[in-house]
């Protein structure tokens, strides 16, 4: 046992002596959380628009002013010639051009209707869609104002209530997501690389002939990363709580236990990767492509999984962070207990077991 601990301490020295890595290890989660918290906004703000207004009457000016008075839009130019639209879009600044029909106010007064065309640059499809929806909403508001004197005689009013996140904070999404990403990064990626490094440098053989058992060697290698991962998880939870007001409605103990489970899962994945590869480079690329990108994209971190095509939804079933993120959200935001998350927890335990068994088998084959 004493031998084992001295080995663990050696591994800690390795990590702590490398100041640059350590700095990033703790800097990365903080930076990510801050980027998500303060930089990434999926709603529209100051979207650049251009207006083509041949009418220039009271109504069109009113509508333009109403659009620009909102925070959503920013007028870049007044289009003089409708032929210029393509050129304007090609410069890549303007996202939407609002085209009023001529004689707008007169047509509205005489015929009871007038038309506006919204032309959006859909080379950024998501943003184009949002910009058009926002514009429509403002124009509809204006229309309702115009008709205020004769209100709709029959009206069902929608009364939305945002459950679990009344202020619609983005942090409720990115705090759990970042946690999954960072734990994956530190536990899986770092572990696989540090084990493969010993192989590549030939020091693994030295360790294997030492009186340490293989299991002890592996445990010794992963213990520091478990510690670092836990510190990271707690940092993220605290940042979420104090800076972005992400609540912890459920049991803190359960939350940490689930984090621990996910860390184990990530470690077993890292272990498996390290048994499959012989160079750090290969370990790194396998981890990056098979763990990092799916964690970012398939686990519902940024884009909700429900929207993805069926095949991807099936694929997301084997992406471990998906379950972790569900569990974390349920515990923190909905305040539910084990009785609600047992299924996901079971899946994670099952995956961990499979990965560990697979790596033990691989390891043994290599030794034979």
């Amino acid at each position, binding site marked *: 046992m004493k031998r084992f601990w001295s080995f663990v301490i050696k591994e800690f020295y390795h990590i702590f002596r490398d100041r640059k890595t350590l700095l990033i290890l703790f800097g990365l989660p903080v930076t990510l959380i801050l980027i998500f918290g303060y930089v990434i906004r999926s709603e529209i703000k100051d979207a650049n628009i251009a207006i083509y207004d041949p009418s220039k009457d009271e109504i069109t000016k009113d509508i333009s002013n109403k659009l620009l008075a909102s925070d959503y839009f920013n007028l870049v130019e007044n289009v003089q010639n409708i032929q210029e639209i393509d050129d304007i879009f090609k*410069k890549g600044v303007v996202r939407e051009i609002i085209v009023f029909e001529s004689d707008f106010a007169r047509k509205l007064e005489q015929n009871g209707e007038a038309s506006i065309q919204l032309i959006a640059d859909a080379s950024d499809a*998501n943003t184009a869609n949002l910009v058009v929806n926002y514009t429509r909403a403002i124009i509809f508001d204006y229309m309702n104002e115009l008709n205020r004197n004769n209100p709709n005689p029959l009206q069902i009013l929608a009364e939305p209530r945002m459950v679990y996140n009344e202020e619609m904070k983005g942090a409720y999404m990115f705090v759990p997501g970042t946690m999954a990403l960072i734990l994956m990064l530190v536990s899986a990626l770092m572990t696989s690389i540090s084990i493969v490094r010993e192989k590549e440098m030939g020091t693994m053989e030295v360790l294997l002939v030492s009186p340490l058992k293989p299991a002890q060697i592996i445990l010794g290698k992963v213990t520091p990363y478990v510690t670092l991962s836990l510190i990271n998880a707690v940092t993220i939870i605290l940042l979420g709580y104090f800076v972005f007001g992400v609540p912890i409605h459920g049991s803190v103990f359960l939350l940490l236990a689930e984090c621990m489970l996910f860390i184990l899962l990530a470690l077993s994945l890292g272990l498996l990767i390290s048994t499959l590869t012989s160079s750090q480079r290969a370990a790194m690329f396998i981890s990056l492509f098979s763990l990092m990108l799916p964690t970012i994209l398939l686990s519902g971190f940024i884009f909700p999984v429900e929207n993805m095509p069926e095949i991807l939804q099936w694929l997301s079933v084997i992406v471990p962070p998906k379950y972790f993120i569900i569990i974390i959200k349920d515990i923190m935001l909905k305040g539910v207990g084990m009785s609600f998350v047992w299924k996901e927890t079971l899946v994670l335990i099952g995956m961990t077991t499979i990965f560990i068994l697979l790596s033990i088998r691989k390891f043994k084959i290599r030794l034979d």
Partner: protein
Amino acid sequence: MRTILFILQKEFIQIFRNKTMLPIIFIMPLVQMLVLVYTATLEMKNIEVVVVDRDLSQTSRELTAKFDGSEFFIIRGSTFDLKEAEDMLRENKADLIINIPDDFERQLFREGNVKVQLQINAINATAAGLTNAYATSIIADFNRHIITESINMVKPVQMKKINVASSFWYNPELNYKIYMLPGILVILVTIIGMFLTALNLVREKEMGTIEQINVTPIKKYQFIAGKLIPFWIIALFELAFGLTIGKVIFDIPMEGNLLVLFAFAAIYLLAMLGLGLFISTFSSTQQQVMFIAFFFFLTFVMMSGIFTPVESMPEWAQKVNVVNPFAYFIKVNRMNLLKGSGFWDFRQEFLALGIYAIAALSLAVWKYRKVV
């Protein structure tokens, strides 16, 4: 020049002799591209709904049917008990509760208006916003419908109507795949180029072979060029390969001049690979270099506006993007492929990345020490 050729020859032999390298360079990224392109949609379909209808009148049933008929919503269940519906929300079995009060129809026709409560799971604020927008627009449609239906019950009124038509240029069907593909492609090309370059140099340090190089009369710039060019070529090749796949499988438009695109990619890669080399000059292990590169890479990607509009970011963040090569390339790639923008439209981006590339490479050459 001849010296550089010798280094290039050696690097290419090493890259292609390694059996894991070819799959890493060509197969893995492309599989990823094919899968990930599908993920990045904000389009919502099949939002799961539970209806609490305590009225069970004709109007309430019609409203429910209207939701069921929409492609955005799927009715997962109906109940009279709000508590039960809330449980479904908690268990992730539904994301929206439509709560219709028991006096719904009578109140509508008696008072002219009635409230319907929508409870939306807002943990994902973006998705909740969209759910709300879709639901509200269905209810608005329904309002129009009941007015025409009940025309004999109430007096029609003259309303002023503004018709809003919208058209989406360059991507009329809002196909998010052709919008995401250029972005994902940039991510993959960057990972391959930047990480492989950075790892390659540090690997020589770790293996000790760099010392043997350092006692030779090789020039610093020759060594850096020898380390840079192979992955620069590979990354450009990867871009071409990815574009071909995108064209064949997703039929992505290629409106612009591809020569301009590749010229830009060439400069972009010089900047990114130069940055990778710079990182590796002050790192001593592959683990370290990978981690530092990953940090920069992730920050660049997240801030670049690949998933979200850049204008929505705070001012300071937009300023930070001036030094984000990734943001330039994402923008240029999309503009060139989807809109056909030409060289003149990118002149500022060309200039900015040109300066970036020179700076990054000079830093790498300067920081690479043959002597300690």
